[in-house]
């Protein structure tokens, strides 16, 4: 409850951000998108416990769907985004059906493989994606007269996206599906004994996760306005999405948000402060967080809080 109020406050503060920092919008947009992707990733990776290192594929599907539909057929970007989400959900469904027989590290490795294959497809099937040449988003229909290429508009779109994703996850977490996902993560046999169909729950999680990631991908596509397979279907992007969620705290509604904040700010600060050593320091930061906060920023805090609350109630 308290965290709900805190979050609403944060959201309102975020509404004023462009007024205070009109020149720091790009980085804020990326933060919002990364947080949104990580939160979406976490539905599958944190709540349902299936660590994916292939989520860049959904960013790709979302952004390419929008770009292709808008560029070639002049279809409005929101329909493009929807199409990307639908396509991603379908992709996740097939992907899940094929790979959910695998457990733990095997599943993770299979996601890398599938995303890599998709990257090669995006490069090789130039008739669809224009291949390595890349694809531009030159003009888009403007909803209500908003110019979608305007950084402010993009900022608010991304903010809405993040708010929606975080809100959805926070709401899910308290309800039936949230608990069913956690049950599946903890122990598939036990969850069957509780009447849960683990495959179905994982599929739902995967499809939701994929579709929401694709929505963020569509916004990202507009923000970049130029897409190229190597950069979009990029293993490091997949890794960063997962990293953000895990550093923040897997399976916590606000962990990915905290993770994105830490990573984006750290990356920017290090980029300016350490010049060529910046990625090295960034790596050190990751290792330190892992060693000292093994459950991630929010996760470790929550873990301790639950115990403290219990210890207090047991004493009192």
């Amino acid at each position, binding site marked *: 409850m308290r965290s709900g109020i805190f979050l609403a406050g944060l959201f309102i503060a975020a509404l004023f951000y462009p007024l205070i920092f009109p020149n720091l919008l790009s980085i804020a947009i990326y933060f919002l998108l990364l947080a949104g992707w990580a939160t979406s990733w976490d539905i599958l990776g944190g709540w349902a416990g299936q660590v994916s290192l292939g989520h860049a594929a959904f960013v790709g599907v979302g952004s390419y769907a929008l770009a292709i539909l808008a560029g070639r057929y002049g279809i409005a970007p929101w329909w493009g985004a929807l199409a990307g989400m639908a396509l991603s959900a379908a992709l996740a469904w097939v992907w899940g059906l094929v790979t959910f027989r695998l457990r733990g590290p095997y599943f993770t490795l299979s996601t890398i493989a599938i995303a890599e294959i998709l990257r090669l497809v995006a490069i090789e099937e130039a008739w669809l994606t224009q291949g*390595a040449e890349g694809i531009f988003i030159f003009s888009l229909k403007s909803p209500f007269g908003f110019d979608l290429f305007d950084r402010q508009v993009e900022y608010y779109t991304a903010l809405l996206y993040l708010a929606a994703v975080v809100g959805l996850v926070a709401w899910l977490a308290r309800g039936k599906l949230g608990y069913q996902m956690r049950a599946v993560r903890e122990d598939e046999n036990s969850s069957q004994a509780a009447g849960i169909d683990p495959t179905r729950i994982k599929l739902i999680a995967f499809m939701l996760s994929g579709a929401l990631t694709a929505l963020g991908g569509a916004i990202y596509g507009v923000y970049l306005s130029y897409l190229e397979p190597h950069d979009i279907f990029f293993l490091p992007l997949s890794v960063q999405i997962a990293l953000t969620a895990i550093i923040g705290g897997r399976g916590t509604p606000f962990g990915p948000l905290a993770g994105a904040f830490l990573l984006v700010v750290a990356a920017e600060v290090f980029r300016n402060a350490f010049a060529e050593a910046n990625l090295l320091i960034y790596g050190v930061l990751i290792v330190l967080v892992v060693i000292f906060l093994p459950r991630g920023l929010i996760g470790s805090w929550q873990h301790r809080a639950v115990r403290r609350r219990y210890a207090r109630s047991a004493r009192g």
Partner: protein
Amino acid sequence: TSFTGRFAEFGAQHRAGFEVALAEINANGGVQGRQVELVIEDDTSSQQTALAAAEKLLSRDVPIIMGAYSSSITNPLAQYFTRQEFPFLVFTSSADSITSPGSDWVFRINQPAATYAEILFDVFGILEATESLESIAVVHGNGTFENAVAAAAESLSEARGYELVEIQSYDQGLTDFRPILNRFKAKSPDIVFMVSYSADAVAIMRQVKETGLSAKVFVGAAAGFALPEFLEGAQEVAEYVITATAWTKDVNFEGAGELYAALMEARGKEPTYHAAQAYAGLLTVADALNRAESLDPETIQRALAETDLRTSYGPIRFTDFNGYRNQNPVKMVAEQVQDGAFVTVFTQEGVVNPILCPVPAWESR
């Protein structure tokens, strides 16, 4: 530009070029009597960091922005600056799409990718006088740039009547080209046309020898084959390879030799044409700023458009041609590896040094 990440190698070259140019400009009294300050941001080889850095630069009231190395990064930057109506000078990225269709705000001093193929096909034309060249096989990386060069080669083969027997792409970082080369060998093409970054270039040539693939002409379009690392790594197998490049120390522009020496000193090792491009880019900017009455974007844009500069990199002026926009029509040069060194063999003015052709078969070297 990129100082870390995948493209860090080129960022380092750029830095040398900037240093030399900046020293020169400020030694000559700066711009309109003021010393020039260069603000550099590292894009960490990432599109999104580049965009954030661009916005940051805009907010710092710089008059003009230059960038970046990779076309995949420059493309979104060009889009961004066009929308912001801010002058943007491209000095290395060669994807055609940057200036074709291009925009009023994007200027490029370096050559588009297609010209790499053009100059080489011009060389083939010359060689036709003595040799019959009919078939061509292309191997290229699947990056934006290599792809563009290969596409140009494909259409040029058709336009100029060569039979394209194979065109094969490979994924970056590939180590084993033998399957591709064996395929080529089966078709025995007259020309082997390779488009690769430097690291792959060495591996390809070594494996060409290993598989015993012989052809009358080996050409390496683009970056990989024109770098000093290529000579160092490939050694004797690099012999006879013809490459296209934007600039060498032997080009007949005044001061090229001195520039080479200065860049050499700044980089601490063999400079590449990327360094020269960065140098020329900065000179262009200084020149435009010198002519601009004020620092608002339109004025600078106009000043840029009117650029007519001679540098040791070559002449710089921006025109519209063949669908390009604000593109400096660079004259490329072709070099051939002869006795372990790059020898400039062909420029727009014609053959300057003899071109060795046909390449002897491996057994008889």
